[in-house]
């Protein structure tokens, strides 16, 4: 095999390696250290072995937060991916309408997370919020501050509003990259709109859909700011997701050891599921069983 290799290229990767080391590897190693110690300060600490893992794994609050987190991510993927594909298919392909649609789609993505939470906290309030008032005026009792179902709906709708545009933009880019020749061949064969979607557009979007599913899964699994601003994890613990539970332990109670143990479990779940998603989606349609 005649393969030319230039190892000097590794030096070009060095800045990225340094940034990743500082922003990811060092904190990860610190968390692993903390997970096995009772930490009062860097100097005042005691080795406790696997005690924190045993206690957090038996903690009902963690089990509840974990179940809520999985349900939330599942619902988000179930809604945002098909909706994103549908909107991308419905968007104009060219002209000023395409530009306008793209700008409108990008707008929610430009708003910071805490501002999104504040907007929806006010908008969905039953007393002064336009959205909450409207739903109640329609005769549907709605108050996210004391009804867990309403709180869940508010957070899901908020996330769909905030992040579906990302799926739309990714799918739109994938759709625009399909050469016209494919559509011409399908027209000659008399293919229906469904068959064009099923056999041309969907397979051609596989790459961008993989990115969309991974990004939306990881982001929704780590969601913190928006539900914290809107519901603060309530009513009760109804919207206490993993990251909110973790913050309560780490910052609220300053239990750094148990918080570190939860962080490691959290990290392992995201790592495992991302690996599974990645493998299933990259092998889908290639003839290899995933």
């Amino acid at each position, binding site marked *: 095999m005649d393969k030319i290799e230039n190892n000097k290229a590794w030096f070009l990767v060095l800045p990225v390696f340094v940034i990743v080391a500082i922003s990811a590897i060092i904190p990860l*190693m610190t968390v692993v*250290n903390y997970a096995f110690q009772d930490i009062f300060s860097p100097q005042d*600490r005691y080795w406790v072995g696997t005690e924190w893992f045993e206690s957090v794994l038996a903690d009902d609050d963690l089990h509840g937060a974990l179940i809520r987190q999985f349900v939330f991510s599942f619902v988000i993927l179930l809604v945002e991916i098909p909706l994103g594909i549908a909107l991308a298919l419905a968007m104009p392909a060219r002209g000023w309408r395409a530009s306008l649609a793209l700008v409108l789609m990008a707008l929610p993505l430009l708003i910071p997370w805490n501002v999104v939470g504040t907007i929806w906290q006010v908008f969905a309030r039953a007393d002064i919020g336009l959205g909450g008032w409207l739903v109640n005026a329609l005769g549907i009792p709605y108050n996210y501050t004391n009804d867990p179902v309403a709180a869940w709906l508010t957070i899901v709708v908020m996330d769909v509003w905030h992040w579906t545009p990302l799926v739309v933009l990714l799918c739109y880019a994938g759709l625009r990259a399909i050469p016209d020749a494919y559509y011409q061949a399908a027209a000659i064969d008399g293919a229906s709109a469904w068959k064009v979607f099923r056999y041309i557009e969907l397979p051609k979007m596989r790459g961008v859909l993989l990115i969309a599913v991974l990004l939306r899964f990881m982001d929704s699994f780590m969601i913190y700011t928006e539900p914290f601003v809107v519901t603060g994890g309530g009513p009760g613990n109804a919207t206490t997701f993993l990251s909110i539970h973790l913050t309560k332990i780490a910052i609220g109670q300053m239990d750094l050891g148990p918080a570190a143990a939860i962080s490691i479990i959290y990290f392992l779940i995201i790592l495992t599921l991302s690996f599974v998603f990645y493998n299933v989606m990259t092998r889908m349609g290639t003839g290899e069983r995933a």
Partner: protein
Amino acid sequence: MEALATLIRSMAWTMPVGLFFAGVALLLLVMTGLQFAYPTIERKGFLPMTTTRGDRVFIGLLGAAWIHLAWLALVASPLWWASILAVLWFALVLRFG
């Protein structure tokens, strides 16, 4: 230098965790060396997909972590048994995965 010393102090290093990360770093170095000496070839074993050597190491390590966590959550016996099981799993994935 002072900043680096503060950073290392704040990481609250302990010997077992240090040895663990040294082991992981050594494993990565060995894997890199092996890749240069004997480039990996994708193969299909008992895992439901084709894997490279690196994939199998990753799956083996991930599985080992889950075995330890499951043991802590479900079994009252000492953790050494989980470690033995994890080593067996790791070897199985590397050889037949």
